[in-house]
Each structure stands twice: as C-alpha cells, then as structure tokens.
C-alpha cells in the first residue's frame, strides 16, 4: 500500500501541499482531480521521489521511500510523466527494454525479454516495435512509454496526466489499458486526470485536491455528485446517468 503522511511542499512562500495525508487502495485505480495549481502533480511527484517534500513521509508497503535503494524502489513503483522526449535514436522495443533496467540493467535475460514481449503485446505495439520513436505519432509514443512502464512490472503505477495531447480515441484506449492493468494484473494505479468524465468512468476511487489540501476522497460514485464537484471546481456541474455511469456536463 502507498501511504502519505503530513506531506508539505512549499515554493518560497507559496504552500503547494499542506499536510496531505492519504492511503491509496491496492489493486484499484485512484484518480487525482482538482483545478490547476491544486497540487495534484506535485503530490504525484513527491510520492514518486521526483520531487523532495519539505515535510512528511511517503510509505510504500509500510517502508519509508528514503529507506529503499533506488533500484529496489524502481521494482515496486513506476512513474510516467507527461512530457517525454529522447534525443537519441531509439526504437520502441529498445525503449520498452529500459523497463527492465531496475532488474537486469542493460543485460536482458530470457525472463526480461519475455516481459518486454508481453508489454509490447499489451499495448499493441507489435507492428511498430522496430520503428524509431521520432518517427511515431504522439499517441504511439505515449503507448511506447506506457509499455515501458508495463515492462517495469511494478506493483504501483503512477501517471501524470497521461491523456494530455491525446485524441479521444487514444485517451479511451489509454484508460482501457489502465483498467486492464488493474483488473487483470492487479496493479495499483494512481493517475492525475483533468477530464472529470474520464475519472468518473474509469476510476474506482477519486481524490479531490484544492489549494494544496485533500478536500474529498471516496469511491467514485460518492465524489461524482453535483454538490461535491461544485465545491472542488467552483463551477456548476450537471450530472446525468448514462448506461449506469455518471457523466458530468459543465459546459
């Protein structure tokens, strides 16, 4: 389980995270929602040690992340940020193989190659596995990076706005893969989402942040309510039920 306690982060005088505490459920998808500057991405970066907090601790399986060797932590927790670019000539398969770096560094074993194959199949990248990354479209590139995370085979997967720059088709595809990762492989996924409808449709739990604090955290149906969302986003949101899923209309 991932647990954060009293996380505080400040930039100068501005408090971005204000004593945030939270436990994330295993084997489920938890979405982080909230307006710009609410602290969602910062929280994700702190959990994944990309950013160091000013106070508080992050526990992964009851152990402080600072006590892990970086290599060991990389076998338990992976993070995918929104902007990724590589200057070097790299094929999709080579990128996905990097997912095995925490285990075998650059010398891949048979086992590793199997995991790489599985990840490539999982993301439907078989046809383009030998293409160079700089020849791919944004959606394909995103999928290649996700395959790398799948190959990394960590219990916990953190994603920072994975739907940015993706069209509808690819956004839906991405979220379906997330669902598959949680349901079929039992992964714990924490994901920062901007589109409330994606959060409503695909996540099990939702955590809402505002001004650096968690103001709500509950199951999806308890969060996707007009009064709660109005409080989170400060706009009026109408909710209608469609195929037993709640859709928010905020236009």
């Amino acid at each position, binding site marked *: 389980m991932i647990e954060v306690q009293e996380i505080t982060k400040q930039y100068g005088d501005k408090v971005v995270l204000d004593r945030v505490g939270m436990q994330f459920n295993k084997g489920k998808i938890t979405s982080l929602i909230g307006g710009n500057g609410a602290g969602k991405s910062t929280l994700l970066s702190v959990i*994944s*040690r*990309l950013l160091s907090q000013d106070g508080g601790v992050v526990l992964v399986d009851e152990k402080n992340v600072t006590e892990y*060797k*970086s*290599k*060991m*932590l*990389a*076998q338990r927790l*992976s*993070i*995918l*940020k929104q902007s*990724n*670019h*590589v*200057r*070097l*000539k*790299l094929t999709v398969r*080579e990128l996905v193989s*990097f*997912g095995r*770096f*925490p285990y075998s*560094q*650059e010398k891949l074993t048979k086992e590793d190659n199997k995991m790489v194959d599985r990840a490539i199949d999982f993301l439907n990248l078989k046809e383009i596995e030998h293409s160079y990354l*700089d020849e791919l479209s944004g959606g394909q590139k995103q999928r290649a990076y996700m395959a790398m995370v799948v190959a*990394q085979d960590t219990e916990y997967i953190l994603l920072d706005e994975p739907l940015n720059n993706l069209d509808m088709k690819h956004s839906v595809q991405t979220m379906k893969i997330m669902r598959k990762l949680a349901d079929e492989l039992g992964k714990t996924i924490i994901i920062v989402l901007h589109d409330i409808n994606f959060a409503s449709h695909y996540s099990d739990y939702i955590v809402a942040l505002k001004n650096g604090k968690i103001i709500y955290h509950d199951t999806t149906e308890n969060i996707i309510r007009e009064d709660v969302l109005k409080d989170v986003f400060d706009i009026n949101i109408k909710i209608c039920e469609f195929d037993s899923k709640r859709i928010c209309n905020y236009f």
Partner: protein
Amino acid sequence: MEKALVLRRGLLTALILLIGSVALFLFYKMGNSWEFALRFRGIKVIAIIVVAGCVAFSSVTFQTLTDNRILTPSIMGFESLYLLIQTVIVFIYGDQTFKVLSHVDNFLISVTGMITFSFLLYLMIYKKGKDNLYLLLLVGIILGTLFSSLSSFMQLLIDPNDFFIIQGKMFATFNKINTDLLWPSLVIMVIILFIGFRMAKYLDVVALGRDQAINLGLNYNRAVKIFLVFIAILVSVSTALVGPITFLGLLVTNLTYELFKTHKHSIIITACFLVSAIALLIGQFFMERVFNLSVPISAIINIIGGFYFMYLLLRVKKL
C-alpha cells in the same frame, strides 16, 4: 539482430581506418634516421590517443548530461581558466618562467587548478540544494568570460616578448609534447575511461531524461556528479597536455551520431574515440606534410569545426 551487426561492422571499419592512419603517420617518408623518426612520431601518436580518449568521453557524456548536441565541456570555462593560469604564471615569472617552473610543475598546477575550480563550482551549486545543471552551465559561462577578461588584461600589461610564451599556449599543438607528462596523462585517461565505460549503461538511462532515469532506479544526482567529476578530470588532462582543443568535441560527437545510430553509450563513446583519433591523426598529418607546420592544428580544427557548426545549424533540424 541486423542493427547490432551494422554497428559492429562500423566499429570495425573505424578501427581499421585508425590503424591505417597510425601506420601512415608513423611510416610515411621516414628518412634515414628511422629510429628517431619512429620515436618522435610515436610520442605524437600516443598523445593523440590520450586526447582522443579524453575528448570523446568528456564530450559525449557532457552532451548527454545536458541533453544538447552543440555543447562541449569548454562552456564550463575550463579552457579560459587554463589560459588564465598560464597568463598568471608568465605574469609573475616573465621570461624566467621556464627556469622556475618545469613542464611537470606547470602541468600539475594547471590540472589541479582546473579540477579544484570545477569541484568548487559543483559544490557551490549543489550545496544550495539547486541540483540544476543549467545554472551550473550559466555560472560556468560567466566565470569563463571573467577568466578570459582577466587574462586579456594581464596580457596587456606584460612584456610583448613574454606574451609569445602565452601565445604558444593558446593554440593546441602536438608538436611539443613533453614525454614526462605523456605517461601520467595516459594512465589517468585509461583509468577514468575504464570506470566510465563500466558506467556507460547509466548514461543510456540518463539520456531518457531525469524523471525517467529516477523512475528506472538510477541515483540520478549522484550519477550526474560522478560524470561531471570525470569530465573535469579528462578535460583538465587533455588541455594541460596539448592546449585548448575541446571544440574538437563538437565536431567528432556529431559526426559519430551521424555515423552510428544507436542509443548505447558504450558504442557511441568507442566510436567517438576512434573518430577523434582518426581526425586528429589525419589533421596532424596534413599539418605537417601539406602546410609544413605553418598552421596550428587547433586552427584547422576550429575552421572545420566552425563550418560544421554552421552546417548543423542550417541543415539539421534536430540538435
């Protein structure tokens, strides 16, 4: 896989070319006293190998750390510091310089000076908790400019005759290599490259960017610091041995990236080393045989490097 085969063949071709250029350089028109010629030229070949190793590893690593293909470590002010040290020495001792300080002393002072400078620079930046490589570069640029200005100022004050001593140091040359310095340089280069090579896989991960590198379990800050220290040592050694030459790095790294399409730093660094050595050997050969020693090799490198730089800016979309 086919790609691995192509790369291996490329490396092999480069190696054969290198052996060919070494042979050409050593045995072309040896004359009567072949023992003397061979010894004389052998020293140059070894010096070229040392410099090629230093330039290849430091430039490729630096470009990966900064994620930029048009930078070389000279941006951090190493060379301006080297010239400042030389200027200060001449400023103090004047025409007595060579009597007071041996080549070995000068080498030691320069190398220690440059390495201390880089350590202070790193400490200053990292102690403030700003693990920001770009800040480091910008501070390096500014200090480099400061050093250059100080040097120019002192050069104006000294005796014009003494200035010639400094002028000799301003351009890289393989013509007056001191054998006493060659072996220690070679040893340092081999040691650093040996360790650096074992760490080349970390460079592959660093090239994916900071976030990805941390995600994949690399202790990013520590790795960057270690590589920066290696760069400082290698640049100091090659500069103190032959003079400012890191502009060569820009030329050879980009040529290597053109020729070897891979993300594996172990291959890129090896290839870059071979390319650098070939370029230096052929450059030196032409300088000796065609230009009759009238043009310093760093001038040739800078002219070709300059044109290549323009080409990169104009033709290549992705730098």
